[in-house]
């Protein structure tokens, strides 16, 4: 299931219910958490196990391949908060 190459997660905030299940299942050894108690969306995940996508009760997490830069998005300009 693991895609191996790093990915950047994207969260559809409109459907997110802030349940924290994605953070709970995340196997990253270091905190990989956003200021909104979701998995991080402003840095790449190099494990890419996609368990966070599997556990989401409302299927509102997806991802793109990490291209080395962050896509333009107001919610991705928050690295100083994490």
């Amino acid at each position, binding site marked *: 299931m693991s895609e191996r190459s790093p990915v950047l997660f994207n969260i559809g905030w409109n459907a997110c*219910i*802030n349940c*924290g*299940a994605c953070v709970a*299942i995340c*196997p990253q050894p270091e*905190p990989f958490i956003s200021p909104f108690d979701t998995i991080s969306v402003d840095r790449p995940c190099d494990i890419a196990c996609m368990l966070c996508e599997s*556990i989401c009760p*409302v299927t509102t997490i997806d991802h793109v391949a990490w291209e080395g830069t962050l896509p333009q998005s107001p919610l991705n300009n928050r690295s100083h908060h994490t």
Partner: protein
Amino acid sequence: MSESRFDVVIIGSGPAGSTTARWLAQEGISVLLLDKRQELGAPIQCSGAVSRHALEEVGVPISEEFIQEAIYGFGIYNEAGKCTKIDYRQLKPDEYGAGESQVPLGYVVDRRRFDRYLMTQAERAGVTVQLKTEGIAYQPLDDHYCSVTVRHYNQTQHIKARLVVGADGLMSQVGKWAGLRTHIRINELASCLQFVVDKVPTDGLLEIITGHEWAPGGYAWVFPKGHGYAEIGLGVIPTLTKRDAQWHLKHFMESSFFKKRFSDCRILEVQGGGVPLASPLRTQYADQMILVGDAARHVNPITGGGIHTALSGGYIAARFLTDHLKHDRPTRAADLKAYQDAWLQKLGNKMWKLYEVKTDIFREKDIPTRDKRLFQTMAGYFSPDSEYKKI
């Protein structure tokens, strides 16, 4: 930048953290209780069911401030709607009921009010409480002290303490700081969704609906929520379904034997969470650190219930730490192992047994056989003569 000193810093002011804090403060231990939220208990990630016994056991007064509805028993359903009713108003009418000389079996609580109430109790016992404060890191200093770094309204603070208690829930980061193996397996974390609804009648019972058709790997529930409201929810194990909890909840509400009962319902709130149906953490302590509550995975692996186990675990932790700190003992990992031993003896060993029961059910590959075993186990679990009824 400032530095302060406390005997104990507790990160997370849920039921486990507040209970630990209150019982420590009552014994004269100085406690700083932190929570990163601005409103405790929110967003709600819990159905809020707790037994009266669980509250009384740790000295929580039964208060209208947090009770939404009194509970008198259980209705356990199989996948086809066959119900085993365990109504203590009928089983033990002298004791249980709504009359003046009777008591409820338990309650559904409002987690926002409940968590605030527990925090208030801790504060009144002498705990220093600080909201909007996030734990960032901790560093053991020597055999007796550590430094805890937190952020409060964007300001960094350092606190010297004899130990830190991680009570930061299922998303716990505190255990990770010490390198504890906190990772939970995907086949042991239930993905849960629930609606608070209007126009669904209930009768003072916690209703639990088993069956792979409705909630693969978990169960669905209908709980009374007070003021004529109810909550309808379910938890599913992702490895046992290709659909998400949202799809399963819709399927349950529209297609199950309860579809008529739900046909007029109106959704008032949407809540969700991850519920571990897993074993407790094998190691719940490190140098200058212990974990309590969901952070230590003190959750009933059969029911997913975590309030009772959080309250009890917090109380056990406080009793251990009071004695330990009053004797000025060091707080290295080896010194704190006795906390986990005490917890295992009082609660944990039974939870391990429950975990084995649960694991054995889900090892069964044949779905009808598994459904039957889960239904029988649930019905047995809530029966008056269950050996586990006080977990």
